[in-house]
């Protein structure tokens, strides 16, 4: 470690005994280290000596604190806290949407199946050919051939 690198330790008062003496001798010989310390000292003294206005803001701060209306982003964040409540709400909405937009429940599925079955048993395959799409038309023809 170069002796110049000990400037921080010297500045922080962490050198002692022979190390301290050695660095003090170094300061007498190294213009760069001497200048760095001089600049640091004077900057620090200047900042410490700067006089600051004595303003009592307590009353103003207290008034604002106790009358504070939450900002919109704070309200939004509070609405979605805790996260689990938001997650439960979202899940509930998703389930409701699913039940609303999908076909009706199990009981009605069976009723629809019975209706389809009835229709299949009673309908004339020939009638289907007149109304089906091209794909259905081909399928019906194949099924008709198998049934024969």
């Amino acid at each position, binding site marked *: 470690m170069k002796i110049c690198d000990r400037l921080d330790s010297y500045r922080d008062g962490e050198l002692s005994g022979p190390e301290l003496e050695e660095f003090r001798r170094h300061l007498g010989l190294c213009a760069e280290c001497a200048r760095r310390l001089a*600049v640091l000292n004077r900057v620090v003294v200047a900042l410490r000596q*700067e006089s600051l206005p004595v303003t009592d803001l307590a009353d103003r701060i207290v008034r604002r*604190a106790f009358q504070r209306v939450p900002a919109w982003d704070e309200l939004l964040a509070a609405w979605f806290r805790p996260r689990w409540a938001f997650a439960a709400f979202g899940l509930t909405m998703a389930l409701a949407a699913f039940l609303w937009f999908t076909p009706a429940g199990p009981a009605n599925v069976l009723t629809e199946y019975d209706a389809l079955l009835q229709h299949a048993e009673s309908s004339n395959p020939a009638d289907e050919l007149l109304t089906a799409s091209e794909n259905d038309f081909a399928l019906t023809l194949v099924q008709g051939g198998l049934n024969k």
Partner: protein
Amino acid sequence: MKDATDATLIEKTLEGDERAFAELVRRYQAAVRATVHRLLGYSADDDDAVQETFLRAFTALRKFDRRYPFGPWIMRIATNYCIDQLRKRKGVRLRLWSELSEPEQQRLLWGLASDDGGAAAGVRDTRDYAALAQTLLNGLNPKYKAAFVLREVEEREYGEVAAILGTTEVTARVRVSRARAELQKKFNACLAGAGRGTGQ
């Protein structure tokens, strides 16, 4: 109220006692003002910074652990606020230094580095260096600047600096060391600029 401990004042504030919070503000506003002034480097922002610091503390008061001292906590809020402001204002130059004439700037720069405290350069009062000091500080990385102000200017121990900055003592030491090095580099750059007659 003046004899109450910080913990008692915090408890009363949470119960809605405005006088308790006012007393808490009065205890710490001078220290907060000094720190924000040194960090922000421009007096016009001081009142806003002090108010915003205490308002943020008020909002977060319920989460504050009263087993720990209030001082470092409020200083951390102030420091973090200033670091955020410095990041937003990056690149905005202070007018104080540039308002000085070039010969005045040169005189102060040479005075700062001289052995006699600037006497030979005609610097009579070290307070003349305030504008220069702020200019040098304003060029620093905000986190290094905060560490430098807390350690060098306010003479806090590294442990306290680390607590305020919310980091380890080792990191606090590194930041102070880098701040010192950057300050010197900026000073050399100012000196070189003044020598060329450009000033800064």
